[in-house]
Structures are given as structure tokens and as C-alpha cells.
């Protein structure tokens, strides 16, 4: 066997980039995009002002809270984990935020910061237990869901905390130019998430943990720290969603966000992210969230029983996972 194919003497001429049709088709964005287009066209037929600027902005505004929750969920699912606590963390965070301002008379900025800290703290709590406690994410975050929900109810006595200064509503219903603030915030968060995932080493490490955690760890990836970081991010996006929610409702709602984890997971898997981790794109999640929003909106317009909508959503998640399942051999 000749040795001259190794080291030093080169095998020049690797193609630098071979983007071809097959690769484009295999991109995880294709199916979600097709879904989005199909559903949009159907909606366009059903309602003639669906494609109007004001309706599109309206749909995006409705999508924003779930869309932001789904950003954190994407990070978590990319590592092969799951975060069931997002809805409860959001509610708790919003309750504390309102409580600090209304009950304790703190300035609005302190209230907002307190709410964000709550989300961050619960994210760290999840992360530490999953990464260092080596406990399954699904159980840890299920427990956190119960804890956060319970603490929120205890703190507020079960009633919404209202009486917030009016400027808080800017986060929920304000506009910059013609564009709703929540939509701007959502796009901003997606932009940051994209940079983190696609342009930093941290992002690559997130993907590598989902692809093969053992290999990543033995190659020198600090897997525990990365896991801590992603659950913290998820806690933080839950708290950011809480800011919008609080602004929209003008109160801290301890009962808000029940079942929101389902919608966030739905957005992620409908966006083409593999539930086993390692594969997926953040903008897929955005498409998934918008798609889900249009479906919700459409089902309402057509007048389908809201309870039936949850059933339909459940089946859509199963369908999305079923389609995505073939990607892993």
C-alpha cells in the first residue's frame, strides 16, 4: 500500500462547497416551508384579507409569546432535552414582576428585572439538576413546572395582580411605526438565537451534544456547562415572553400559560428540529410557530370547537415527529 497519500503530500481538490438540489431538499426547512405555504394559500382562499399587511402583523403578534418560548425550547431540544416548565415559569415570572411593582412599590424597571431574574434562576435550577444531577430533563422540568406554578399561586393568592403603570403595556400592545412591539422583540430574539447557534462555538457545541453526547464530551466539549446554559436560555426566554404577556394583560397572571409548553414543543418539531437532538434550525422554529399561529387563527375563523383545537394540535405534533423520524437511521 503506497504511503504517499498521507500527510504532507496532499489530496488537493476537495470541492469547497457542494450545494446541490439534493442537499437543499434534505434541509430541515423544506417541509415546514411547504406546510406554511400550503396553509397560507388555503387561508388566502378562505379569507380575502388574509394576506393584508394588518392581518399578517396581527398573526405575528398573536404568535409572539409562543414564538419566544419556542426559541428556548429549540436550544433545549437541539441537545436532545426537553423543557416542560416554560409555561409555568412564564406565569411565575410575570406574577413576580407585577408583584414587585404593585405590592412592593418598586420602580417598573426593577420589577421587570426581577421577573427576568426569576426566569433565569429557574432555568439555572433546571440546568444544574439536568447537567450535574444527571436527572432526566423531562422529569426535572416537570417538577419545576409544578414548583413554579405553585409558587406563583402562593405568592399571588391565586388572583391576578393588577394596577401596573400604563407604560408596561407598551411591551404588549405598543407599536413602533406600524409594527407591534412584541413582533419586533420576537424577531430580535430570533436574530440573537441565530447568531448564537450558527456563528458561535457555543452553538456548534449545542448541536454536537444532541448528535452524540459521549463523543462531544470525550472530544473536550464542556457538556455540563453547555447544558446549564441552554436551560438558562430557556428560562430567560420564558421570562421575556412573560414581559410581553404582562404588558398585554396589564397584570400578573399566576394562571397564565397553562399548556404553553405543548405549543412551544409543537412549534419546534413542526419547524423540523429532530426531537432526538442534533438537527434543526432556529428559523424552522419561527416557521413552525407562525404555522401554528395561522392554524389556530384559521381554526377559530372556521369556527371549530376550541377544545377540538387542542386535539388537532396534538395530532399535528405527532405528524411532525412522524415525518421527522425518518431522518435518523
Amino acid at each position, binding site marked *: 500500500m503506497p504511503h504517499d497519500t498521507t500527510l504532507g503530500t*496532499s*489530496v488537493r481538490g476537495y470541492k469547497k462547497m*457542494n450545494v446541490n438540489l439534493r442537499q437543499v431538499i434534505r434541509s430541515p426547512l423544506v417541509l415546514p416551508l411547504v406546510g406554511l405555504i400550503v396553509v397560507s394559500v388555503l387561508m388566502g382562499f378562505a379569507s380575502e384579507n388574509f394576506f393584508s399587511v394588518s392581518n399578517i402583523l396581527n398573526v405575528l403578534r398573536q404568535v409572539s409569546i409562543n414564538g419566544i418560548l419556542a426559541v428556548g425550547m429549540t436550544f433545549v431540544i437541539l441537545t436532545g432535552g426537553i423543557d416542560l416548565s416554560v409555561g409555568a415559569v412564564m406565569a411565575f415570572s410575570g406574577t413576580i414582576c407585577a408583584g414587585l411593582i404593585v405590592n412592593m412599590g418598586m420602580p417598573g424597571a426593577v420589577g421587570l428585572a426581577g421577573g427576568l431574574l426569576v426566569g433565569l434562576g429557574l432555568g439555572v435550577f433546571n440546568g444544574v439538576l439536568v447537567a450535574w444531577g444527571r436527572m432526566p430533563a423531562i422529569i426535572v422540568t416537570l417538577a419545576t413546572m409544578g414548583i413554579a406554578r405553585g409558587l406563583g399561586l402562593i405568592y399571588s393568592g391565586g388572583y391576578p395582580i393588577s394596577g401596573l403603570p400604563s407604560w408596561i403595556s407598551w411591551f404588549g400592545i405598543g407599536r413602533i411605526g406600524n409594527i407591534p412591539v412584541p413582533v419586533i422583540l420576537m424577531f430580535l430574539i430570533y436574530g440573537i438565537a441565530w447568531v448564537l447557534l450558527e456563528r*458561535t462555538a*457555543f452553538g456548534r457545541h449545542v*448541536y454536537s451534544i444532541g448528535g452524540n453526547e459521549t463523543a462531544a464530551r470525550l*472530544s473536550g466539549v464542556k457538556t455540563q456547562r453547555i447544558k446549564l446554559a441552554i436551560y438558562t436560555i430557556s428560562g430567560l426566554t420564558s421570562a421575556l415572553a412573560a414581559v410581553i404577556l404582562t404588558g398585554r394583560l396589564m397584570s400578573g397572571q399566576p394562571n397564565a400559560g397553562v399548556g404553553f409548553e405543548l405549543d412551544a414543543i409543537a412549534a419546534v418539531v413542526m419547524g423540523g428540529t429532530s426531537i432526538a437532538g442534533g438537527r434543526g434550525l432556529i428559523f424552522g422554529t419561527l416557521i413552525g410557530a407562525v404555522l401554528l399561529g395561522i392554524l389556530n387563527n384559521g381554526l377559530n375563523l372556521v369556527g371549530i370547537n376550541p377544545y377540538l383545537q387542542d386535539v388537532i394540535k396534538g395530532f399535528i405534533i405527532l405528524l411532525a415527529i412522524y415525518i421527522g423520524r425518518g431522518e435518523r437511521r
Partner: protein
Amino acid sequence: MLEMNRIRKSFGKVEVLRGVDLEVRSGEVHALLGENGAGKSTLMKVLCGIISATDGTIRINGEERSFANYDEAIAAGVGIVFQEFSLIPYLSAVENMFLARELTNKLGLLDRKAMRKRAHEILQLLGVDLPMNVPITTLSIAEQQFVEIAKALSLDARILVLDEPTATLTPTEVEHLFNVLRELRRKGVAIVFISHHLEEIFQICDRITVLRDGEYINTCNVSDVDNDRLVEMMVGRRIEQSFPTKPDLPDDTELVLEVDELQLKRTDPISSFHLRKGEILGFSGLVGSGRTETALAMLGAHPHTNRSMKLNGKDVSFAEPADGLVAGIGLLPESRKEQGLITSFSIMRNISINNYGKYRKGRFFIDLTKELTCTVEAMERVGVKANGPDDRLDTLSGGNQQKVVVARWLNHDMKILIFDEPTRGIDVGAKAEIYFLMRKLTEMGCSIIMISSELPEIIGMSDRVCVFRGGGIVATVEGDDITSEKIMTYSTTGKLENAA
């Protein structure tokens, strides 16, 4: 008993079996030989109905059969003991043997007494005595294998396939296994025996079928061939595995790594060794002797009770592999697919997984252009054969996958590399390339610890050899003392008294 005729199998465009014949008689041990990738395992999977052949016929007792799945093959009397056991770890031997076809009494409850009795009968038939009611994990590897064989026999297997059964056994256990096989042969079972150890073939087998690159080469009696002739049939030409020449390291070569004390468990021997600049230190020993565990413990990836070591004369202690990486120690794990690579990712993503520090832009961001040029450069240096850096790892051969792992660490300018079974699952030609690559690395000032189960590799490559037994190093040999006899004696007895 069993005739397989002109079996063909293609995966997509790749033809892995090109008209293979295999004929096994009742009451014989038939060896199936061939290099890695010759098609042995594929052929056996066809026999067991796990995959279906593209073309060809299977006859059992003269009757043409085709199996749509494994269950049908079992029903026809075919039993297979896989390389990786298919036992459930926390169930007992009896429960494993009757898994999915448990005997039940009239009430539909498990008839545990009947199962135990039947299991006992079968094990007695094999002449094996093992605890039947404890979890399988508490049994030795050999005992687990006997349970596998017993399981196949409890299904009335008349054709028994053993895929590399001796790979993880000690010599005594191998002898025991062979006695069991002889007993089965006497009872008229047709046995297909796959092994890479030629001396075992001569010990136990009656006839041999050789495959090469998916083609049928020959079937002959064991008594008609010798070692050299077999190797020639397997590789197609007489070749001797060539190793690059070892360098002359002066006595005062600087020490890069000194491990003064390393103990895995309180009862294990305390290992101590050192690694010099530019040398290849072999870690030899039987499977389970603690070679890999010691290397992992060094990097903080395996539990240990006691550890003190110096890197370049300074005391160090690693809590996780990431610390080792920073200090310049890289690990190329034993099983590339499970521990080394992310096979669903591209070559580029795999190479740069721990390298992002190298092409950082503005502190946090990845310089994509630089990542690409670095990847291509690293691929060229080790000679990865692929279309480009975007190819997925699972489209590459074993040898090329291993080169990707090497490229990853090369890209990182490591000082010490730990190769765990560097050539496992790699064909002869690619092996030579990997050996050559390792020597090139040491010439560049790298030091290598090479863990290997293949003695020729240990002898051909190592400047010094640490021999492991029972969880730690029992001896270190160098120079002319590196012989297979000495190493084998140390690994099996721990001392040299009985050496010839």
C-alpha cells in the same frame, strides 16, 4: 444441512455480496473467514432473515427456504450468537433464555419451575455450570456467551452461527467454549464459526470458507491448508503487515507525561508510567484489564481512587476531558461511532468540534472561511478520501472515519494523543496508512499512547509497552523484550516465571 447458493446482496449501488456459496454439513464446525468488510456478517444476516438477499437461494436439509425475518429463521432451526450480545442485562439467565416465549402454567402465569428445569437441562447438555437466577450482568462475558448459546439451543437450533465468539474471552474461557462446541458437533449441530484468530480455526474447525470483498474465494478442509495459505486467500496476496521503522530515541529524551500513581479501584494494582517526547507507548493486555479505563481516568473521564501525575514536570489534575484538551492531550476513543464521532454531522463539523478557539472572530464568533480552509487543510494532511468537507461521516469507510478523528486532533496541535484501538474495524491497507500517520505525528514531536488488543500492532508500533492485568500495569517492557511471548505471559499471569 445448509446450502447457500450464489447469494447476492446490494445496498443501493454497492454490491456487498457477489454470488457467495456456503455449504455446511451437520456435525461440523465450519469457519467463515475474511477480512473486515469481506461480507461475513452480511451473509449471516441473510441466513437469519435479518436482511433479505437480492438474489440466490438458501436450502436447509435440501429444502429451499427464505426467511422474511429472524423469527422465521429461528423456527427453521437457525440460531445466531451476535458479536454484541442481545441479552437483557438485569434479567437472569433463565429469564433471558425464555424471553418472549416464556412457559406459562394453566392460569397463564409464568411457570418458573418448568423454565428453570428446561434451562438446567440445556446448560447441562453444554456441560456448563453457572448461576441461573442472578442478573446476567453479574456473570462473566464467557458465561453470558454460554447463555446465548443455550438460548439458541433451547430453540432447537440445528444450525448455530457464532460471530467472533472468542473476541472478548480469556484463553481458559476459549478452551471451555471449544469443549462446548465439540460437544455440540458430536450431537450433529452444524456450526458456523466466525473468527479473526487463525490459530483458533486450526484448533476447532473442520472446514473453511473464505470470502474476500464480497466474493466467494474457496472452501477447503482445515487439514489441507496452513496459516500462510489462509492469509493469502483472505487478502488475495501474500502480504506482511508493514510497520514504519521505529526511531532511535536517546536515553535522555525529555519526559512529557509522568503518571506516578493511578489506581482505578481500591483493590486494583497501582499503575505508574511515563511518556517521552516522540515515542509511542503501547498499552497491552486482555480486554477488561483496565487499559482504556486507565487512559480515561487520566483525563478525568473514569472514576479512580488515587491519582497523581505530572505534565511537563508540573503537577496536573484533570476533572474532565476538556481540561486535558487545554493541556494538549487528546483522546481518540475505541468506538468511533459511539464515542468519537457524530456520524450524522459533516466532516467539517466533526473536525472543528473542539477547535473553535482557532478560528474565532471578534472573540465570540466563528470565522467560517477560516474554518473551511483549516478543515480542508487538516483533511489533506491525513488524506481523508471524500468529496468534500460537507460529506456526512456515515458515508465514509471506517479507515476514513478514523482519519477524521486524527485530523480533528491534528488541527488542534496536540502534544499527547491517546489512540484507543486505532485500527479496529479498518482494513489492511488503511491500517498501514494509520500506522504511517502515527509515526509522522511522533516525528513532529507528538507523543502517543496506543491502546491495542492486537499483539502484532503493539509489537510493530510501540517503543515501549505497558502490560495491564486486573486493572493496572503489571510490567513495562522495551526494546528487544517486546515479544508476543513476554507480553502474553505478563497479561495472563502477571509475572514472567513461566516464560519460555
